[in-house]
């Protein structure tokens, strides 16, 4: 459990945030760069101290200005995973994971088992003996995650752990992260600028705008009632609700508005399916070939995206309703304006499914 109420001022910027995260719950904090996400995480970690406020982890105060409590990072029951991993280059993957246990003075015999277990869980066991310099971005992130989880922290802090990983590995890593977090069941604060991360990994989502939390809620609440245009744009992705149906040939998510083909998934029952607007291609005529999801649609709205309008959001009346994001070029070439009828296509592998 985490209860935080912190303010931090630095030239021209002020962070002022109060929130709670339940035991075992994952809170995703979404915001643009400069919104104060990393500042917030550093305050929670104890790497920086707030100007005022209080932070309590599992009922224990780690910071309280009025009581003069200000525990440094190494005395807080936390673990931190950052975007750039920061694996120690002079230690092997195994020794990196063992670092925190050794620093805490855990007996040697226990360390070995715990490190192996953590590497196993994050899928990093195969490269335990390798040096960080020889690992790929995704592999490094798995080791960094093991290094954090092995401490069994009361509070896990994630600072954009997926953003430095290339797009191909990202979806796999995100799925694995979701599984590991569900298994570990630890209270998590995950800051990110990526709505897909927030929606797939957060039990609740907090929107951070210019140092203030403007909305907190479950993904359904945020989608149904975005409290500002900012939240709506930020979350401008396709979130569908449905049931997994296993066909002989393929898996589909059956929504109220029709079936969506998805790649093989290991969840059952009621699920969410997320489609990034970038992954949707628009066609005037039905294309030949491969995209497993091809949906007839009528354009309802065309919105050029800031800052320069090179990307354009196209809202579609379709079953299910979708938003696509295409280039201004494509809009001009295909003459996309409200009322135009066309086809929206996306691959089964572009659909992220989670329970």
């Amino acid at each position: 459990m985490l209860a935080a109420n912190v303010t931090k001022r630095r030239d021209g910027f002020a962070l002022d945030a109060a929130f709670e995260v339940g035991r075992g719950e994952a809170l995703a904090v979404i915001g643009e760069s400069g919104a104060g996400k990393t500042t917030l995480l550093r305050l929670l970690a104890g790497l920086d101290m707030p100007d005022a406020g209080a932070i309590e982890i599992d009922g224990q105060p780690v910071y309280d200005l009025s009581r003069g409590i200000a525990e440094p990072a190494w005395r807080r029951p936390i673990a931190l995973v950052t975007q750039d991993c920061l694996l120690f280059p002079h230690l092997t993957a195994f020794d990196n994971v063992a670092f925190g246990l050794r620093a805490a003075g855990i007996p040697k015999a226990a360390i070995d088992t715990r490190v192996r277990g953590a590497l196993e869980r994050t899928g990093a066991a195969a490269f335990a003996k390798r040096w960080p310099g020889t690992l790929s971005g995704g592999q490094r992130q798995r080791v960094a995650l093991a290094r954090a989880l092995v401490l069994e922290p009361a509070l896990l802090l994630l600072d954009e752990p997926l953003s430095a990983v290339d797009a191909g590995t990202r979806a796999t890593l995100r799925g694995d992260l979701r599984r590991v977090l569900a298994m570990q069941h630890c209270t998590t604060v995950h800051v990110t600028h990526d709505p897909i991360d927030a929606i797939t990994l957060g039990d609740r989502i907090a929107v951070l705008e210019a140092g203030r939390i403007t909305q907190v809620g479950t993904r359904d609440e945020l989608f149904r009632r975005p409290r500002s245009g900012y939240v709506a744009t930020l979350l401008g992705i396709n979130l569908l609700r449905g049931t997994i149906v296993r066909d002989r040939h393929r898996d589909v998510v059956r929504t109220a508005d029709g079936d969506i083909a998805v790649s093989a998934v290991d969840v059952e029952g009621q699920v969410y399916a997320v489609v990034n607007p970038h992954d949707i291609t628009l066609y005037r005529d039905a294309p030949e070939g491969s995209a497993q999801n091809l949906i007839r649609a009528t354009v309802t709205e065309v919105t050029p995206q800031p800052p320069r309008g090179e990307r354009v959001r196209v809202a579609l009346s379709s079953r299910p309703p979708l938003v696509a994001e295409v280039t201004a070029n494509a809009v001009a070439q295909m003459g996309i304006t409200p009322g135009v009828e066309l086809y929206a296509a996306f691959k089964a592998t572009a659909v992220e499914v989670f329970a």
Partner: protein
Amino acid sequence: MHRPPAWRDVLLRVAVAVAIAVLLVVLVLPLIALVARLSPLALLRHLGDHDVVAALRLSIATTAIATVAVIVLGLPTAWLLSSVEFRGKAVLRALIELPLVLPPTVAGLGLLLAFGRAGLAGKVLHAAGIALPFTTLAVIVAQIFVATPFFVSAATAGLAAVDQGYLDAAAALRATPAYRFAHVMLPLALPSIVAGAIMSWARALGEFGATITFAGNLAGRTETMPLAVYTAMQTDLDAAVALAVLLVVFAFALLLGLRAAPWAVSIGGGRARRQRH
């Protein structure tokens, strides 16, 4: 396209070549003259001399002790200079670097007035029955005095180059400040620390002026290699040359090791920098 005339290019190349050639003559010719003076056989004969062996042994022992002392005493200072902001930091830096530019005879004079029999600290030492001047210990103190800045500068630079991100990561992994220093800062700055230690050692090995002023020139007790060269020059030039060649070869080997060893590429905290991807 406008190209500068070819003759300017040629002129520039000639100027660069001449500068390098002149510098090499000034720096390298004396070394060649030393090495070329004696046949290998004559060299070996002189190196077998009783006095030479004694001086060599004294030099190795005193510089080894001095280097260890410089590391042990210098590391906390390097940590302070690299990691803590405080008033008067520039003054402390300048004080520690002063021996780099002071004439060693001035250093020796200062040491004598501080630790000599009537000196500031010398009186206390004398009362305790310790006499420093003209002893082997004085040789070591003189070497520490002149060699310290080489180590502290290199170690400070190495420690300061360690990415703060690694230290934060360690702090978030239960590491106390002391644990962070021992297990993150030191290993990441190790190339710079080793480089600084080698430079200190080389400097201590060549130390002459402060030693002869503070510790005198007593065969077997304070007569290190550089002093032995000086003594030998009065009577037997070839013996001096033999000693000098030995010093040159040893110092060159040290510096070559510093620059050409596999880890030398990363001197200056190369490993301490964050890996980008």
